[in-house]
Every structure is written in C-alpha cells, then in structure tokens.
C-alpha cells in the first residue's frame, strides 16, 4: 500500500507492483471510490476568489483558512469575500475570518447516512439531543435549498426514493437500524495498468536527500491529524507512539543528521523554504531517514480555544501547493533563542542501563529462528523461550518479599498482551481515559512528570550500539512497544505499604483501590515496580471541568472522579466486571448459572484494540481465551524476578525479518 501523502506517480508504481505480485482480489481489494478526490479543486476555487468572482462562499466543516497550502493565501482571500458562511463545530481560524458562522451539530447528535469505503451502508442515529442549538450538514444544505427540514426527515426522504414500496421500505429501515449495517452490492475493481507510463513515473523519482539538500517531510500527526482534533485534550496529551511528545510538535531528526548539524533535542532552529520560515524546536528520534526533517502538521493553532492554542508550531507555514508533503532544499539555521521545553512522557528510550551498559529484559523481542531453535531443544519442565529471556532464574528459585494472597474465590481475572500484535496506536490509552474519567493535566504537568494515563505505551529503541547514557547511537533501530498498566500483582508491593489499607486485594485477584480511603502518602507508587500508579497532585478533575461546562457531562457515571491527593490506577475496569456480574446474576435466575461468560466482560483497552493484542478474562477457566493465550510459549511476566506474580503477562514479540532485506 502506498501512503496517501505520496504523489500519483508513486501510487502508479505501487499498483504496478501489486499487479506483478498478483495481489488484486487476494491480499488487496480495490473498491470504487464514492467521493473521488480531484487534484486542483482548491486551486480552481482560489483562482476564482482571486478574480473576485466568488460573492458567496459556504463552507461545511473543515478549516481551509488553516490547512489550505499557505501559498494559496486562502485566509486573505476569504476575508475579502462579501458573504462567507462557515458551518463549524467549534471556533477556528476559518470561523474567525468568515462573515457568518453557523454552529454545527456533533455527529453523535445528528441523523445521517454513511457509507464505508467498501460500500457498506449504515444509518447514523443520534445518541443525544444536540447540547446546544445547532444544525447538521445535511440540515444546513436543505435549508439553503428550500424549506427547513430536520435530519430524520431528510434521511427518511432518501429511503423513500430508494424503496418506493412502503412496506418493504419499513422492513429494510428497521432491519438496517437493528443490524447497524446494510451490506453493499459494490463489486471489487480489477485495474488494468498501462505499463508504458511506469518508466517515466520511475524516472521522475526524487534523488535521496543529501546533507546539502535536506528533505522536509510534512506528516499528518498521530494525535491531532491535520489539526482537526487539536481541541481534544485527550489527543493533545496522548504521547506520540514514537517520539512520546505531548502537547507539541517538533522538527524530528535522526540521530546521525542531528549529530552532523550539531543539534540536540529541544534546541530551537529556524527552518526556511524559499522566503518562508518557521522557528521550532528539534526532537531527535532514532530511525528518521538521514538528511530528512519530519514535521508533523496540525499544531500552532489560533482562535481555536484553550486546548489547541499554544500547542506546538504551525508547520503548515512551510506547506506549499506545489509540495504539500515532501520537499527538498530546506535550510536549517540554529536558533538564537536557545531551547524550548518539550513534554515527553519517556525520559529513557531503551532497555539499556546508563553507566553499566547492561540490558534489562523488560520487553522480550526475538526473531522467529531464535525462538524456534530454543523451543525445539527445550526439555520438559524447562522455562519457555520468553521466560528464559525475561527472568534470570527459574520460578522455583524466586521468592517474593511480600505474602501471596491466600483467599482466591470466584473468577480469577487476568490479562495477556501480545507484543507481536501491538502496533502502538494508543487507542487503549484514550479508551481507558474515557472509560475511567482520567484527567488530562496539561503540558506543564506532563513536563513535571505527572501525566495520569493508567495504561501507557512504553517504547524502547533497540540498535547495535549504545552510548554511555544507554541511548541508541544509530538510526538503524527496532522499536518495541509495550502497553503498561497495573499488573494486578498477586504479591502486590503496593498493598503492603499503605498505612490506611486503601489498596487491597480482592478474592478475584484484583488489586483494588478504595479511593475514599486514600490519604495520599504515595508510598504505594514508590513501591510499585511498574510505576503504574498515578497521583492527583492537584485537583485535576476540577481544573479540567473548569475549562468547559460540558466536560462534567462527559464523565462515566460508573466510575468515581478522584479528588486531589488521591492515588489512582487501572483496576481491569472493575466497574465493567461488576456490570457483567450483575447481568450474569440476572441471567442466572433463569439458567441457574451465574458466572460471567468468557468475553462478557471486556476492559476498555481490550475493546478498542484494533489488533486484539489485549485479551482479558478468567484465568482459572482453562478454556478461556486469556488462559489459552497464557499457555503459549511466548508468555512471560515483566520483572518476574521480583516474584510479584502479575496477573497481566505478555506474549513476546517475534519478528521474522527477511534476511535478503536485512
């Protein structure tokens, strides 16, 4: 697959390769586009605006004043249009310039009809009445064209056209609402390629950047995308999967390029492209291609509210219509203002200790051949591959300094996380934040090391060589991502040390928190080897709620909000377990069996994981998915040497590199 930012010629080459591999219909299915993007549309509009031929401009969503390439000067032209109307969910650069602004409804407040890329149809139903007086895009368009109609009527009208027979229409409507989707009749496309153009497409390729001709790569940000999610504090505070930066973007440079330019992380530089310049800090990330500067888009917003404003730098100032994503010849000038603090959530980037140079086997990562070779020779009773790597001695020689819980009744909860499947997308972190009412704390507090995420993604670089500080010195790196939350240790070090017993073990193996009982000595967090506990150093909930009146309505009513001075952490979504327990009891009144079925209680992180890397369930049931996962020979516990007996274990990451590509 070719990335969407690549120019058409690269796409052509990609299609040709897939054709050669005979991929169509087997590993790759092409569907007809519903809404083909036409290059040059915006340029055409801008051309007409320049000539003064646009008297009225209606903008449905979007933020063209911010994200149209700067050389088109959309913002300046917009200000000159006599009647400009923006339908927008929130204030932004465009609403600032538009003559009229119409508040748009949120998609969860509106009726609509949606089609997926494969043609699947779904009816969009509102989950809530609009919180403020607003209109949806279809309602707005219908207003412009005729009498005012609401979204429901518009959708029903469309169905009327689709199914003239009233009874059948009603049947299909109800069925689609019930099923959620209606399968599409769209047929896959099998493209035919004209190979003639390929050689010229190949000939047009850009030369690799050199040290005198640096390449600038404008990237869509992992959190705020092109800036459209900039007002979402969850996303602003979500650490980038690789750089671990929050609340900012930066000029990302590889180790070698940064070394050659004499730059370090947080140094301010001035990038210039022609006569356009942008001053921003540098962040050194191993693995960025040599002589390339990666610049995430979507930051440096204005007129966009307290969350988006002041976060990062507007990379769009170097984004031209001729080179929207890649351009060579960018110049780097050392800034005079010194440095700029960037809030990263991970200070140490590898599993290698400074000074001693020793490796800590925290996240096990190996090649398929290493794994197979060991497992083949493994004798009965010997540790599996992953445990051999992760712990220094066998379990029988380990002892915990804390007593193991003896009371184990009911279902025993456990979790297995597959490192081979984890792609580091961060969905678990945000899902957890939404489910458990976890506060965002802002850049200053992230800089203070006080971010509140209950599940975080630990990112480790691995390379051939490391410096004295234990950081990688090469750009040829492997990255391993390890989701880390409370491990629900059976011999939990945190429980022993709490003077008031605010954290205690449940008979089902959960390490529970009694928030009301916590007095905030923070001893538990000190003694947690996984540093999975977070503390309310300030009244973050109150601070957050003060930023917008709607935030208090967003909280999950099943989970308490925490006051300042209280420790908090993951509890395997105990509220969901209890919810499932109640359901099971109700069902049990009919069937006589009242245990939670495997898969009936999903943790929030598990539910959203796109690769299903997280499996949760009852480990005492040998047939549960989690028990089956834990029986794999890739299963290991982090810091098993401490004998904390964590209920969360991991499956080692096994890579299968192609030796010909290595």
């Amino acid at each position, binding site marked *: 697959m070719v990335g969407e930012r690549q120019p058409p010629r690269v796409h052509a080459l990609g299609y040709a390769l897939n054709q050669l591999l005979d991929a169509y219909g087997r590993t790759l299915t092409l569907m007809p586009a519903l809404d083909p993007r036409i290059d040059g549309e915006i340029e055409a509009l801008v051309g007409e605006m320049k000539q003064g031929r646009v008297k009225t401009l209606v903008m449905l969503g979007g933020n063209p004043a911010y994200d149209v390439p700067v050389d088109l000067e959309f913002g300046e032209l917009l200000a000159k249009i006599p009647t400009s109307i923006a339908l927008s969910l929130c204030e932004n650069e465009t609403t600032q310039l538009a003559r009229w602004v119409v508040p748009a409804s949120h998609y969860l407040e509106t009726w609509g009809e949606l089609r997926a890329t494969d043609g699947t149809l779904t009816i969009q139903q509102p989950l809530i009445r609009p919180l403020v007086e607003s209109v949806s895009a279809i309602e707005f368009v219908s207003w412009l064209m005729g009498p005012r109609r609401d979204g429901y009527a518009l959708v029903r009208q469309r169905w009327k056209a689709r199914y003239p027979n009233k009874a059948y229409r009603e049947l299909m409507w109800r069925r689609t609402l019930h099923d959620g989707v209606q399968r599409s009749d769209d047929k896959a496309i099998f493209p035919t390629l004209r190979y003639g153009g390929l050689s010229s497409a190949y000939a047009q390729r850009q030369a690799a950047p050199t040290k005198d001709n640096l390449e600038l790569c404008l990237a869509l940000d992992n959190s705020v995308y092109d800036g459209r999610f900039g007002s979402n504090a969850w996303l602003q505070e979500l650490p980038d999967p690789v750089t671990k930066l929050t609340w900012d973007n930066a000029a990302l440079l590889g180790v070698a390029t940064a070394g050659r330019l004499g730059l370090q992380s947080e140094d301010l530089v001035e990038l210039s492209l022609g006569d356009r310049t942008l001053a921003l800090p540098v962040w050194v990330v191993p693995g960025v291609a040599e002589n390339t500067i990666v610049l995430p888009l979507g930051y440096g917003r204005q007129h966009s509210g307290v969350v988006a404003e002041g976060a990062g730098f507007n990379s769009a100032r170097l984004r031209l219509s001729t080179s929207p994503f890649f351009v060579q010849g960018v110049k780097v000038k050392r800034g005079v203002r010194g440095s700029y603090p960037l809030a990263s959530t*991970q200070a140490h980037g590898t599993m290698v200790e400074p000074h001693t140079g020793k490796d800590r086997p925290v996240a096990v990562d190996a090649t398929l051949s290493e794994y197979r070779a060991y497992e083949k020779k493994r004798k009965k009773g010997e540790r599996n591959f992953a445990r051999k790597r992760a712990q220094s001695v066998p379990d029988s020689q380990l002892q915990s300094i804390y007593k193991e819980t003896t009371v184990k009744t009911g279902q025993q909860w456990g979790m297995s996380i597959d490192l081979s499947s984890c792609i580091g997308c961060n969905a678990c972190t945000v899902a957890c934040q939404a489910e458990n009412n976890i506060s965002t704390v802002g850049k200053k507090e992230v800089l203070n090391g006080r971010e509140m995420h209950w599940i975080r993604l630990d990112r480790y670089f691995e390379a051939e060589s490391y410096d004295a500080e234990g950081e990688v010195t090469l750009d040829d790196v492997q990255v391993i991502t390890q989701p880390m939350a409370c491990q629900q240790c059976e011999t939990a070090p945190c429980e022993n040390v709490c003077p008031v017993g605010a954290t205690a073990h449940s008979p089902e193996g959960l390490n529970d928190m009694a928030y009301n009982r916590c007095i905030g000595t923070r001893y538990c967090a000190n003694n947690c080897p996984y540093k999975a506990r977070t503390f309310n150093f300030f009244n973050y909930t109150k601070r957050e709620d003060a930023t917008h009146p709607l935030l208090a309505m967003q909280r999950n009513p099943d989970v308490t909000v925490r006051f300042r001075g209280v420790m908090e952490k993951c509890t395997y979504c105990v509220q969901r377990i209890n919810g499932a327990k109640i359901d099971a009891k109700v069902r049990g009144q009919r069937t006589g069996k009242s245990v939670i079925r495997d898969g009936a209680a999903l943790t929030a992180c598990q539910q959203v994981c796109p690769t299903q890397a997280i499996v949760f369930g009852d480990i005492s049931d040998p047939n549960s998915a989690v028990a089956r996962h834990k029986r794999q020979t890739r299963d290991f516990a982090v810091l098993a040497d401490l004998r904390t007996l964590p209920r969360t274990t991991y499956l080692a990451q096994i890579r299968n590199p192609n030796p010909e590509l290595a």
Partner: protein
Amino acid sequence: MATPRVSAVEHEANLSDPLSGRAPLLLGDRSLHGITKAVCRPVECVPSRAWTLFFVVSVAMMGLYVLTTAYLFYEGIGIWGVNNPVNWGWAISNFVFWVGISHAGTLISAVLYLFRQKWRTSINRFAEAMTIFAVVCALSYPTIHVGRVWLLHWVFPIPNQMGTWPNFRSPLLWDVFAVTIYGLVSFIFWYLGMIPDLATLRDRAKTRARKITYGIFALGWRGSTRHWKHYERAYLLLAALATPLVLSVHSIVSFDFAISQLPGWHTTIFPPYFVAGAVFSGFAMVLTLMVIARWAFKFEHIVTIRHLENMAKVILLTGMIIAYAYGMELFIAWYGQNPYESFSCANRAFGPYAWAYWIMIVCNVIAPQIFWFKRARQNVVVLFVVSILINIGMWFERFVITVTSLHRDFLPSSWGDYSPTFFDVAALVGSFGLFFTLFALFIRYLPMVAMSEVKAGLPEAKPHHGAEGGSREASATGEGA
C-alpha cells in the same frame, strides 16, 4: 576560646588524658552559686539585642513555613517538585534528617546516663531540648506531605463505626507509633529532668508572674531527700525506657525504605546504618548549636573544650560506622549480583545526582577524619565548620537515598528526574525557623544547662571526697590541680 575566668593551667588540666586521671568537668567559678548564676542569667536578664534579632528572624522563617504549608493545604502536593517516579522528595528527606538530629538528645541524656558518663551533664539539657524541637520539625513533614491532610487521623487506630483499622503491615504506620512515642518519652524525660532547675528559677523569681508560672511547672519541688529519691529513681527508669527508643526510632524510620522493594532502599543494613547516621548527625547538630551558645552566653567554663572534644570523638566513631555502611552498600551491590541493586549504586555515584552523592561522601566520610587529630578536636573553629559540613552531608544522605533510588528504578520507561520548587525550599528553610524559634524560647525561658546535675557532678558533691573506693574521679581531682 577560653574566657579570662579560666586559667591556662586549668584549661590544660581539663584536657589531660583521662587514662592518667580525671580532670574536673568545669573550669573557672565552680561554686554552686556561681553555676546557678551563670545558668540563670540568660533567663533572668533583659533579652539581649542579639537574642531579639535571632528570635525575630526565626519567627519570620517559621512564618514562611506556616504560609507555604497553608498554600500547600489549599492547592495540593503539586506545588512541590515530586512527580511520578519520584513520589517522595524533600519533605521525606527533611523528615529523616530531623528525626536523625533528634537522636543526640536522648543518646546523651539516657544512654550516657546509664553508662555514667558524667561529662554529659553540661550538655544534656541542651541536647534534649534539641531532640524535642527536632521531633516537632520531623513530625511536621509526614503530616503535611500526605495528599489529604484532613484525613490524617486515619493512620491512628481509632475505633470507629465502620470498623476500619489502619494497615498494621505498613512501615509508615510503625513510623507513626515510633516517632510519636519517641517524641513523648523524650519530652517527659526532658521535663522530669528539668523539675529541680525549674524550682531554682521559681525560688529566684522576682515577679509574681514568674513565681506562679515556674511554680506550676516545678510541681512543688522542695528538694527534700524524699523528692530526690523519687526523682532519681524515676529518672533512671525513664533513661532505661528511652534507651531502646534511641535504637528503635531510627530503625523503624529506616524500615520506611528497607521494607520496600526498591533497589537502593531494600537493604538489611539500613537499621544500624540509620541509627549510626542519626547519632552522627545529632551530635553534629548539638556541636553546632553548643559552639554558638557557649560563646553567646559565656558558658565556656561549664561546656568546656573537653565536652566538645568528647562529642568530636563520638562523631568520629559514628562517622566511621556510616563510612563502613556506605562501603558495605557498594560491596553488597557487587557481591549480591542483583542487577537492579548494582545499577542503583552506579547511578548514585555516576548518574544525574552524582553531585549529591559526592557531597555526601565528602561531608560525611572525609570531613570527620580531621578529628583523628587532637588539635582539630580542640579547635572550636574546626569543630564548628566540620559540624556544619556534617549537617549538610547528612541532609544530602537522605536526599540521595530518597531521590536517586526512586528516579531510576525498575522499568527504564518510567525513569524521570526530580527538582525541588520554591515551596520545597521554603518548607526546609521554614522548618529551621520553627526549630530556632522553639530554641530561642527555650534559652530565654528555661535553664539550658542542667544545674542540679552539673552540681552533683562536682568533686565536692562527693561526701567522701577522695576516699571513696571506686571513684577515681574524686581522687584524681585533688584540689591542688
């Protein structure tokens, strides 16, 4: 440093080798009345300008503590520099520092009393007062450093309608008991020892207010033989009771660290190491204060160079013990082959906080070595400078233990740094304000030397002056010396 009242010959005799004979503990005017006059003078005279200035500055510093604490209660722990890997910072360092300081008092009054070390009489009151005030400072930290201070009473085993008890497995709870009991016993011991002297002040009082106030606190002491008999028995019992506390308090404080799982904290050597460190720092603090007080209040004939030298010897001994402990930590880290432990040591010595570690080594291990030299032990300036260095070094020891262990523990992903904020600094400076305010009040209103005990230690207090079997002290004193 000797005042003109002390002759050179006497001064020399006072410092003579104890093996060849015991010199008198006091110099100059050794008459009973002379001692009473000297000790009572600061309490009975109009406060000097120096005292007033000292008091005002101390109260101002204490005011800073009150304000910063008020803001802390209002805003939350976030005003400090603590963060996620480093959940304990200066507050806990300060707590352990002050608990350590508090050790000298009880050691001097109780342990040396049981060992019949008579030289203690000149300094014990002072050291005990220091103990009480240091415990007050120490206890203020665990109080204010919890996240929800208004629920602090939950750490006490108070019967309640919900039937919830504190967690008796937690070392923090042991701490609550240990330090509270230590503070109480030290206070009772101090007060009991002061009763005869309070009676002296009452008897000398010229105003009605003083008569009544000292009269109440003197508990009707008339100095009868029966009084003395009961008093001495009670004092002995309390000394015996306080002695194990000297060992237990800091052992239990060390459990806060040793019971945890953290590399650099989870160490069996901690209890004796902490106790030795506490005595070390406590003596250093007594020395610092004593050098100033004996000069300011002209007590050089009561607290002689010999007293200071003895304290220097205790400092040298305990300093060697903690040097051994530092060395043993490194040895065990290597010998034990625990990778986390050895990294923790490497990180202390070479990591981002290496400067703190080396300040600790220089101040606590290298600086006291000068006390091998007699001239250094007898030089007030050297004693003062070294005692200050040790105070600094011992604070850094607690900082190194607390912060460097926490900032890089098990998972490299969670490592972080710590830096104090203005409010951390204000809390430390402010606690000195609290300490000095209490001290200023003490030297203004209470006898800072145990007059009755000093008098009982005089050669002439022995009825069988020179003829008593076991008393080498009396025989060696000889009035002609």
